[in-house]
C-alpha cells in the first residue's frame, strides 16, 4: 500500500473519529477540567461524579479508545501511532476530556509493555483499561530527594514472597489508589544502582498504610506510604531482579516529558490577555512598562519553547534522536511555568493573593502559584536536569 492510499485512509478515519466523538461525547465532558478531583480516576474506591462522566467512559471503553494504541488482548484498540494521533487531535479539537485519568496508562503501562512477562501483561494491563485498579508510584523516600538511587526500602527474599519494609513519600494520591509500583532494594551488597528492583504491591495487603502530605498550596495530592512487613508474592516482580533502576529511568524519561510540556493538551490563556485585563493600557501600551517587557519576554520564550517541542518531534521522525533532551524539556518547561505564575500574580495584583472565599474561587490562583514551585523539584530537580545536560549532552567532566 503506497503513501497516498494510506493518507486517504487516514483522512477517512479522521472523519469517522470526528463524527463519532461529536455524537458520543457528552456536552459536559467537553468543558475544561477544573481540578484533579473533577475527573474520573477509576479504581476500587473511585466512583463517577456524574452520569455524563460514566456514559463517556463506558462509550470510550466499548469503542476500545481508552488506550487506543495498546493491543486488543490487553484491552486496547490495536491502533497504530498515526491513528492514535488522530484520535488525540480530534479529542483536543472538540475539547473532549480524557475518559479516564490513570497513572496505570501513563506511567506504569510503558514499563509493563517493555519489561513484564506475557503473563503479567495479561494480568495487569486489562484491569487498567477497565478502571478496576488505580495505580500510584512509589519511588521517592524521605530524605532521599534527588538521590533516588540511595533508596532504603528493602525487600527480603523469603522463599515464596518478598518481605517489604520501608517508607515512600510523594506518592501521588496513594490514599485513593489500589496498587503501588515501587522501587525496592533487593541487594545491599552491590553498587547502589544495581541492587534495586521494580515491584508491584497491592495496597490492600496487611502492613500498608498511607498519610496525606499537606502542601504549601493547602492541598494534599501526595502521601507518605508506609510498608511494614508487607508480604509480596514473587510473581509481582517486574523484569529481572536488580533491573529496577533501568525500568525507573525508562519511566522517568516519559514522566519528564509530561511535566515539561510534551503531552500537555490544554493551552493556558495567553499572558498578554491577562495583562491587558489586569493592568490596562495607556496610549495603547500596557500601563506598567516593566511588566510589559516581562510579559513580552515570557511570551517570546513560551512561543519558541512550543516550536522546540514541534522541532523535537520532527527531528525524531527524521531519525535525529537525542536522548538527554528530556532533561532540557523538563528543565525549561517547568521554569517557564513558574515564570508564568509569577507574572500571573503580578498582573492580577491583590486579586491574585486571596486564599479563601468565593470571589477568588478559594484562592485558585494563589494556590496554583504555590503548586508551580514544585514543578522544578518533582521528577528530578532543575539542578539535576542541568547536571544531566552538562554531563550527557555537553560532555563536561566530573571531578
Amino acid at each position, binding site marked *: 500500500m503506497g503513501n497516498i492510499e494510506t493518507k486517504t485512509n487516514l483522512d477517512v478515519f479522521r472523519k469517522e473519529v470526528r463524527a463519532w466523538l461529536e455524537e458520543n461525547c457528552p456536552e459536559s465532558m467537553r468543558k475544561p477540567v477544573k481540578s484533579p478531583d473533577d475527573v474520573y480516576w477509576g479504581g476500587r474506591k473511585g466512583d463517577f461524579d456524574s452520569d455524563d462522566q460514566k456514559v463517556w467512559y463506558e462509550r470510550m471503553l466499548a469503542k476500545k479508545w481508552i488506550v487506543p494504541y495498546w493491543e486488543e488482548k490487553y484491552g486496547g484498540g490495536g491502533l497504530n501511532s498515526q491513528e492514535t494521533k488522530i484520535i488525540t487531535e480530534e479529542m483536543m479539537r472538540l475539547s473532549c476530556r480524557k475518559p479516564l485519568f490513570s497513572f496505570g496508562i501513563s506511567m506504569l503501562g510503558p514499563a509493563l509493555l517493555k519489561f513484564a512477562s506475557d503473563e503479567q501483561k495479561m494480568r495487569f494491563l486489562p484491569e487498567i483499561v477497565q478502571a478496576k485498579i488505580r495505580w500510584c508510584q512509589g519511588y521517592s523516600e524521605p*530524605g532521599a530527594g534527588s538521590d533516588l538511587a540511595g533508596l532504603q526500602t528493602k525487600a527480603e527474599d523469603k522463599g515464596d514472597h518478598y518481605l517489604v519494609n520501608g517508607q515512600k513519600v510523594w506518592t501521588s494520591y496513594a490514599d485513593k489508589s489500589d496498587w503501588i509500583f515501587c522501587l525496592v532494594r533487593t541487594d545491599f551488597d552491590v553498587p547502589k544502582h544495581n541492587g534495586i528492583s521494580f515491584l508491584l504491591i497491592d495496597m490492600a495487603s496487611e502492613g500498608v498504610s498511607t498519610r496525606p502530605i*499537606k502542601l504549601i498550596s493547602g492541598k494534599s495530592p501526595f502521601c507518605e506510604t508506609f510498608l511494614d512487613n508487607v508480604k509480596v508474592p514473587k510473581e509481582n516482580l517486574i523484569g529481572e531482579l536488580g533491573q529496577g533502576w533501568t525500568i525507573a529511568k525508562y519511566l522517568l524519561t516519559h514522566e519528564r516529558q509530561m511535566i515539561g510540556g510534551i503531552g500537555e493538551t490544554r493551552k493556558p490563556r495567553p499572558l498578554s490577555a491577562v495583562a491587558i485585563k489586569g493592568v490596562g493600557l495607556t496610549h495603547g501600551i500596557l500601563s*506598567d512598562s516593566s511588566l510589559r517587557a516581562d510579559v513580552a519576554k515570557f511570551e517570546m520564550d513560551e512561543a519558541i519553547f512550543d516550536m522546540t517541542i514541534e522541532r523535537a518531534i520532527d527531528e525524531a521522525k527524521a531519525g535525529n534522536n537525542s536522548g538527554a533532551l528530556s532533561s532540557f524539556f523538563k528543565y525549561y518547561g517547568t521554569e517557564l511555568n513558574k515564570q508564568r505564575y509569577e507574572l500571573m500574580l*503580578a498582573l492580577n495584583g491583590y486579586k491574585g493573593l486571596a*486564599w479563601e*472565599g468565593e*470571589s477568588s474561587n478559594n484562592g485558585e490562583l494563589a494556590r496554583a*502559584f504555590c503548586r508551580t*514551585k514544585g514543578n522544578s523539584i518533582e521528577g528530578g530537580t532543575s*539542578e539535576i536536569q542541568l547536571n544531566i545536560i552538562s554531563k550527557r549532552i555537553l560532555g563536561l567532566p566530573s571531578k
Partner: protein
Amino acid sequence: MALVITEEQQMLKTSAKELLKEKGPVAQLRKLRDEKNPIGFDENLWKEMVEMGWAGLTIPEAYGGLDFGYTGLGQVLEETGRTLTASPLNATVLLCATAINLGGNVLQKERLLSAIAEGQLLLAFANDEGAHHNPNHVETTVTTNENGTVLNGTKTFVLDGHVADQFVVVAKSKGEVGLFMVDANAKGISRERIIMMDSRNVAIVNFDNVLLDEDAALDSFEKGGSALLEKTLDIARIGLAAEMLGGIQESFERTLAYIKERQQFGIVIGVFQALQHRMAELYCEIELCKSIVIKALKAIDEDSSDLPRLASLAKAKLGETYKLASNEGIQLFGGIGMTDDEEIGFFLKRARVVQQTLGDTNFHLDRLAKMKNY
C-alpha cells in the same frame, strides 16, 4: 548620618528579637491560620508589644509615645519580618499613626495618638480602590448634603480592615485628595474580610453615605492632603521594607543552614558550587538591601527631602530580593520545602503579599523613572 544603628536601637532590636522568638514565632501564625482566628493576630502578644512601648515608638512624648523614631520602629519591624508575626504594627502604627501625627491637629492627636500608644485603638488605612496599588486613583468622595458631610466609595485591600475601630480613609473632597477619620461602626459601612495567601487579613470596605464627624479631616499638614498621603505612604513603604529585610534574612539563613546539613549522594548539598554561587549572589543582594533600608529609615527621622526616592528604592529592591530569596528557599529545601509542615513556604507567601502592598517593584521602578523624567 552614619548608616549604622545606635546602641539604643540595637537594644530595642535585641529585645524585639527575644520577645518575638518566644511569643510570636512562625508557629503562632500557623496556629492563627489553622484555628481560623477571627482577629488574625494574637491579642495577648499585642498587649505585650504595647507594654514594651512599640505602639508608641514613633509617637511624640506629648501624646504618650516614646518619640524613639522610625529607625527604631524599623528594627522592630525587621524582627517581625523574621518571625512573620501578625500584629497591628503595620496598619495601626506604621500607616495610621504616621498619618495622624503628620496631618492631625492637636485635638485629633490628643484623642487618637495616645489611645494608639496605649493599645486602645486599632486603625486601618483605606486607600486603594482597585486590584493594584494606585494611591492617586481616588473615586471615593466626601460631599455635603442635607444631613451633613458624607463619605461614599469602596476600598480594597484594607489591612486589618475587619478589626479596625476606625479608618483613615483617602477621599476626594472638592476635587482635592484628603484623609478622613471614620468610625468603623458608623452607619453605612460594610466590610468583607478576606484571608490572604500569607494568612493575614484585609477587608473590602464599602462606605455608603457614611456621616462624618465635624473634626474628621486630617488637614493640618502644611503641604496639603496629597502631600500628606504621599509622605505617609513613603514612610510606610520604608517600614514595610524593614519588615521585608527581616523576612529575606531569615529565609536566607534558614536556607543556608539547610544546605549545610541536607545530605544527597552522600554529601551535604552545600558543597555543590552551583548552589554556592547562587547563595553568594543572594548574599550580595541582601547586603544592598541592608544599606537601602537603614538609609531610608534614617531619612525619615531626619525629615529628608529625598524621602520619595529612597522609599521607592527600598520597596523596589526589597521586593525583588524577597522574591529571589523566597524562591531560592523553596527550591533548595526541595520536596520538604513544598510541604506545609516546613515553615519556609510561609516566607514565600508573605513575600508575594508584601510585594503588592503599597506598590510592587514595577510600580516603584516606574515611579523612580518618572522622578528622573524618563
